[in-house]
């Protein structure tokens, strides 16, 4: 797998292997925060940034700390701790240096800690044996893919205000149906570039 270029992995993570629409990771915040386009863009940007940074950090920690000391079985706990610590750090930095961005992101920054897509990206990176550059491409691509998906769902949900959804399907149910159609349409890219 090491011969695939980072660029290919980047494209694949957005389209063919969209972390949300093919692996269905990060569904909770995807459904919860897609009511409005503005908030979905905020959350999407935050995910792009955190996902890229944490895959890089976790790569370094995994290959230079966990593997040499034979602590690979601790990877889940360590990854989650790294993600949580990183998000806290970012929050403090952003609050200190750019209050405007801090208020724009609001609650979403801390929420990202529990977004399973972030942890998923780090774990995929380990399973698929990516090199450092590939990991960066993957993290950035997966983040952008997630952001694109949530912004699209937010747009559709905003348009759905004019729809007349049957009572049992209102709310989360119809969002799930829309997500299914989204995933169907993204299947069209299958085979364009492929990673595992």
């Amino acid at each position, binding site marked *: 797998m090491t011969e695939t270029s980072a660029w290919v992995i980047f494209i694949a993570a957005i389209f063919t292997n969209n972390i949300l629409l093919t692996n269905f990771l990060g569904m909770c915040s995807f459904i919860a925060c897609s009511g409005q386009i503005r908030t979905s863009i905020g959350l999407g940007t935050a995910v792009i940034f955190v996902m890229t940074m944490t895959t890089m950090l976790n790569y370094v920690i995994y290959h230079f700390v966990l593997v040499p000391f034979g602590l690979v079985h601790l990877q889940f706990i360590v990854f989650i701790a790294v993600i949580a610590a990183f998000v806290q750090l970012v929050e403090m930095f952003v609050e200190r240096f750019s209050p405007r961005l801090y208020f724009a992101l609001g609650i979403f920054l801390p929420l990202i800690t529990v977004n399973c897509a972030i942890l998923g990206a780090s774990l995929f990176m380990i399973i698929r044996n990516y090199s450092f550059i590939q990991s960066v491409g993957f993290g950035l691509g997966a983040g952008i893919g997630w952001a694109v998906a949530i912004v*699209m769902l937010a*747009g*559709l949900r905003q*348009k759905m205000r004019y729809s007349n*959804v*049957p009572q049992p399907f209102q709310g989360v149910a119809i969002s799930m149906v829309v997500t299914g159609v989204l995933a*169907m349409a993204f299947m069209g*890219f299958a*085979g364009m570039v492929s990673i595992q």
Partner: protein
Amino acid sequence: MKVLLKVFEAVRPTFEQGKLKAFKPLYEAMENFFFAPSTTTTTAPHVRDPLDVKRLMSMVIIALLPSIAASFYFFGLRMVAMIIVSYAAGGAVEVIFAIVRKENINEGFLVTGMLFPLILPPALPLWMVGLGVAFGVFVGKELFGGTGRNLFNPALVGRCFLSLAYPKTMSASWLEPSRDLAGRLLQYVDASSVDALSSATPLALAKQGEFASLSHQLFGSVSGSAGETSAIAIILGGVFLLLTRVANWRTVVGILGSFALLGGVLHYAHPEKVGPVLWHLCAGGLLFGAFFMATDPVSSPISNAGKWCYGIMIGCVTVLIRGFTGYVEGVTFAILLGNIFAPILDEMVIAVRIRRLRSEG
């Protein structure tokens, strides 16, 4: 006509108060099919125009006539069976929803039920036609409240579902078109007659470097989905739609223009992957999709700038899917993706406009 009117008048009470009250939507649909309704519109879309939803739909049906005729000519009486199954299965979903939700039956289904068989391989098993159209109407339209409120094109949702759920059958149910002068007007040919079963569409053959002749594609005597093979018939109907302004020219020009442009560039860069532009324009479902599927006023963007972006996106994605993915045809996926992006495109156009107004003070 008077006799018919009397019949309707006579049975009206049974449907309005009597035993068959539950089937009132069915009665009203039948009545409206023959006579203009005496009531005003109660559900969206409301348009202040002599061109109401029903006549809009009739225009599309009229525009489809050349393609329907071509599909009869090349693929025979099986088309009749497919259209009947499509109307029956999709209509059943529509009627059940109307009865349960106590609403009127939407006019939109007339078009969906006709479009759907035209974008399917002509030798597809009939139960799949029924399943596909039922899924498309159910998930693509009725769950959102019916005509005018759907987010996606119902026929495309149905086709996308079929091509993902039964990929083998969907890619192997092509019929060899008849090459006789009389066509197949009086023949019923399906997958059981092996000699008529064809292996591949021009697009699939092109992946192996074999190009069908352009004149065959213009005329329609190539293998492919029932209504998409005859380019001339589609253009005839499409120009009618554009002239009556039922279809927006921006979408059509956006799709075909961007397709030609990107296709041309990629043809010079990767001639082994992307064929000549003119050939690709007439191949597969591109023309049919551009004129009849993408121009659906409900699932495409509302603003004009949004329509341009929407068309350009569909055209580019089609080229990319055709040239670089495992699929030979990408129009279905491309238009569905366009539907998905449509609200965001509108939103972006509005945001840009607001910013411009603000800066002008």
